[in-house]
């Protein structure tokens, strides 16, 4: 056997693939964990400023985005259920829906960010510099954490797009459901992180 064939020597170990994905998710949680530690500490240090900062955010857009992302998790879960039942085409369609909802989330996020930036509420921005230190930290954390989360949504959208194409071409599909399952796990993680970000920033007021 050549070493290229060797590279895929254990493709059938779905349990191993899932284990690897879960371990990766652990690292993602800890990556955000560092930020959550920073958030908790800063919030304890500047409780009033964080309260005031939360009032500046658009709760409607935040909740709307939550609804979008939760729906996308639903379509994702349905896609995984479909692929397990052997229906690769429906799974591809549902994965496509997930991708679209993810893009929708990013679009709303972009609207929000540009509003804030338009008002000068960005690190080093004129409006933010007139605010007390604690609120500046609040917005620093807001942009860092939602920005990192946004990057993860973008990564998820890219990965799921590839998976959708693989499903359509029959290269992933019911024979190897672990591939789409792992994509789904990642997408749910992205969703879960947002569920924590929403109350910490938008509902903090």
């Amino acid at each position, binding site marked *: 056997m*050549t070493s290229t064939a060797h590279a895929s020597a254990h493709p059938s170990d779905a349990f191993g693939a899932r284990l690897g994905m879960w371990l990766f998710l652990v*690292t993602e949680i800890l990556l955000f*964990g*560092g*930020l959550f530690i920073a958030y908790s500490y800063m919030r304890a240090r500047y409780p009033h400023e964080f309260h005031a900062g939360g009032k500046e955010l658009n709760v409607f857009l935040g909740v709307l985005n939550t609804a979008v992302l939760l729906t996308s998790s639903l379509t994702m879960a349905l896609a995984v259920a479909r692929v397990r039942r052997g229906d690769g085409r429906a799974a591809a369609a549902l994965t496509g829906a997930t991708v679209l909802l993810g893009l929708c989330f990013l679009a709303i996020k972009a609207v929000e960010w540009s509003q804030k930036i338009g008002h000068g509420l960005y690190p080093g921005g004129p409006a933010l510099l007139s605010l007390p*230190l604690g609120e500046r930290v609040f917005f620093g954390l807001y942009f860092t954490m939602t920005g990192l989360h946004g990057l993860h949504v973008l990564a998820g959208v890219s990965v799921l797009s590839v998976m959708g194409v693989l499903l359509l071409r029959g290269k992933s599909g019911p024979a190897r459901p672990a591939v789409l399952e792992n994509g789904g796990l990642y997408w749910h993680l992205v969703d879960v992180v947002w569920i924590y970000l929403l109350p910490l920033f938008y509902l903090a007021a």
Partner: protein
Amino acid sequence: MTTLARPLPHTLPSYLEDSPRRGIAAWLLSTDHKRVAMLYLFSMVSLFFVGVALGVLMRLEQLTMGRTLMSAQTYNALFTVHGVIMIFMFVVPGLPAVFGNFFLPILVGARDVAFPRLNLASWYFFIVGALLAVLSLFTGKGAPDTGWTFYVPFSLQSGTNVTLAVFAAFVMGWSSILTGINFITTIHRLRAPGMTWHRMPLFCWALYATSWIQILATPVLGITLILVILERFFGIGIFDPARGGDPILYQHLFWIYSHPAVYIMILPAMGAITEILPTFARRPIFGYRAIAYSSLSIAAFGSLVWAHHMFTSGMSAFGNLIFSFLTMVVAIPSAIKVFNWTATLYKGSIRFSPALLYAVSFIFLFCIGGLTGVMQGALAINQHVHDTYFIVGHFHYVMFGGTGFAFFAALLYWFPKMFGKTYNQKVAYLSWFPLFTGFNMLYFTMLVLGYMGQPRRYYDHLPQYHTGHLVATVGSWFLVAGLLLLFGNFVWALFRGEKAADNPWGGVTLEWKVPSPPPVENFEETPVVTGPPYAFEGEALP
């Protein structure tokens, strides 16, 4: 005893000969764990010698008082880059990425790691990070000068190329994480039939514990480094006190990774030593389970001691007390290992070899490093020696005397298996004398200098420290001579060495039951394991 169903055929070509690709692509695109290990070995040893050269230059600067060779700013850059290279590119990934990659699958009876392509990808993360770090020396406004710890607020204010160096460390962190994920999955899923947890060689246990630390600690460093970059570019105000941030928060987040990272560095080294000792003492390891579980408990307790780097940073007295206590607790599993190693040698029919010589030196040097570590865990002493050469001496005893010597011992032990060539034993013995002597001249002197009050990271020294600095600098020359002999011997063996036997040391773990060098698939057929890993009983001594 581990058994193979049939005697080994020597018909299969070795992994060095058998590749579907030609030339450089056979290496750069190969997902064979043994070839990936070789990529790591050669890139790391090269970087190690760059680090050594920087260290020697620093010692030369201290040869005389005042300016000898370089400005203070150059000296700052040297100790920063020396630290970044040695820690992130040699000591942290060293043993897992080289020997772990090469031997973990063989030791558990697998054909490869669980995710071979991911394994190759982690080398690319590593080498891109390494290249970025090297690039940071020559681009921007000069090499970073913050020390490898990148402490804020200085790392936010320094005009030097901190951003690129920090990003390099971030990229290399992902290499470490992916390797960790790969090893844990390999150990869980790919053990050969009959290879129960308690029949695994202890190097695998050590790698297992290490991988967990890599997974749990590295991401926190990753995000911390990203925050430094964001703070430098956008001023988000998390670490910078002028913007409402807190520099102590940085220190906590940094050490939450970087202290456990110390155990990423030392655990695989301990694992390698645990493989070497039984082979040359010709008896099973003493206290198998104690060693296995002490690896796990070092990983667990080691994650709870980070703030002992910050006793002088301004923490509450109660916090100091807790961290001081936990620091001393870590000494217990480490001592368990040391006693078990000694007990393994006791009444063994010891056959000396260069690998054993380096392994025993590891135990000696690690004890000095470990005990000086416990000293610093004591709050009163810590106040006195914080940020002195005592710290520098201590961590070189652990990192170089410990991990470095274990790396050399592992290379001496496994070299014939990895390359199928034999090095010159006499030269290998000979290299030990200057290396060991120079090492102690250099670093023991540092312990003394530090206790006398020489601060670390100064490019100059006062007259009362001059003799010590002189001894240390001369020691560094011996040390380099030893290193050149050691590695010169390896290079010679690669080209001129005689063909190695399949089992030159009479080892009993699985890697000694496959040809030297192993074939691509490691095993002709999957081995079946029927007993503990270190079974020498009843074996006729060769």
